């Protein structure tokens, strides 16, 4: 996925797997990113993502958050309720993800 985004002309900061919410939010702040892309691989993420959203709000970091992975329907609506903008299932096309990002990120400097 990171490679596909790079090939779409984006700068992708890859942090590796098994990151704590604190690490993810700190990296997003220091790198001043437009988007946080989270990969959901286990049920534990349903605890981690709300924490990430909370930290982002606490630190007033205005970042678009999207997730990908296998997510039960009720979880999807829960994630969207807490501010995750889009959840992509395993069948999602990379092109659609790229398009979503490009359409939803506001231009830097217009802030």
């Amino acid at each position, binding site marked *: 996925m990171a490679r596909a985004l790079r090939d779409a*002309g984006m*700068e992708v900061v*890859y942090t590796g797997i098994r*990151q704590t919410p604190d690490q993810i939010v*700190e*990296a997003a702040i*220091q*790198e*001043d990113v437009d988007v946080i892309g989270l990969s959901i691989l286990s049920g534990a993420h349903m605890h981690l993502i709300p924490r990430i959203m909370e930290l982002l709000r606490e630190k007033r970091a205005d970042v678009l958050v999207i997730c990908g992975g296998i997510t039960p329907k009720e979880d999807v609506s829960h994630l969207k309720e807490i501010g995750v903008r889009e959840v992509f299932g395993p069948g999602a096309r990379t092109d659609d993800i790229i398009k979503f990002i490009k359409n939803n990120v506001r231009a*830097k400097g217009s802030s």
Partner: protein
Amino acid sequence: MVMVLNMDVKGLVEQLLKGDRKSAARLITLVENQPEKAHEVASLLLPHLGRAHVVGVTGIPGSGKSTLIDKLIKELRGRGKTVGVISIDVTSPFTGGALLGDRIRMQERSIDEGVFIRSMATRGSLGGVASATKDAVKILDAFGKDIILVETVGAGQIEVDIMKIADTVILVTQPGLGDDIQAIKAGIMEIGDIFVVNKADLSGVERAMGQLEAMLNLGRWAGEWKPAVIRTISQTGEGVPELLDIIFKHMDFLKNSGLLQERRRRRGEAELMDVIRERLTQSIVGGFRGKPEFETLVDKVARGKTDPYSAADLMLKSYLEKKKS
């Protein structure tokens, strides 16, 4: 709280000086994305610069630079120093995108208040290290970081360009690259203040150390700093305290010998020339493209009717004449 949207450069700098991380990050984005704002940033930062010691870490890909930096951060924090890190990766010339992966090795450190890590892509920078990188170093300097580590990829020009930023340059290599020294090209040898043979648990470490030392002995170092050669194992952190000792020794040497002033003056000159060149290119050469006179010359050069030197002289001469009248 501290940061609001629509904040101007002045407000961002004020927040930066108060220690706000988000403003530091936003300012770096600003100089990256809007070079025209770099001027304002640079002049506002001016009274707050020159405190940090800037250490460039460069070397061949895969030699473990990021892991070594991770261990250096740990050691520096242990000695009470705050640390800024700028990791530079190459932008793809085809797509303009970049994969910035150095952070993976340092992620644990990023939640430490005394550490600030930023990845940057080279983007279109022709001179290797982008001018945005120089500005980012200044931002972290004004932010109050004691030591700023700048990691660059081993890709020729960028390695040499690290001299334009760093007070101390560390070159990282590893044993067993066949013709060890060939991996570090002759010209690049000259920029190193400290040479690190990393992954010293691999076989061939003695050979690599010996070759480096032999090569360095060819230089004349009378009264000057003779580059140190040191072995480390970045995975375990072995040799890292010793490496840091040498970095500090080099810092002292620079200060006491007056070389720091000399180097910073040389850097000031390079920086000034860079900006002049950039401005000249923009204001003069930028307007050439599309002009019939220029396009005709391009055709002539392409068809072999004239050589590029004569064409350039013609173009500049006519520009200067028009300017006068």
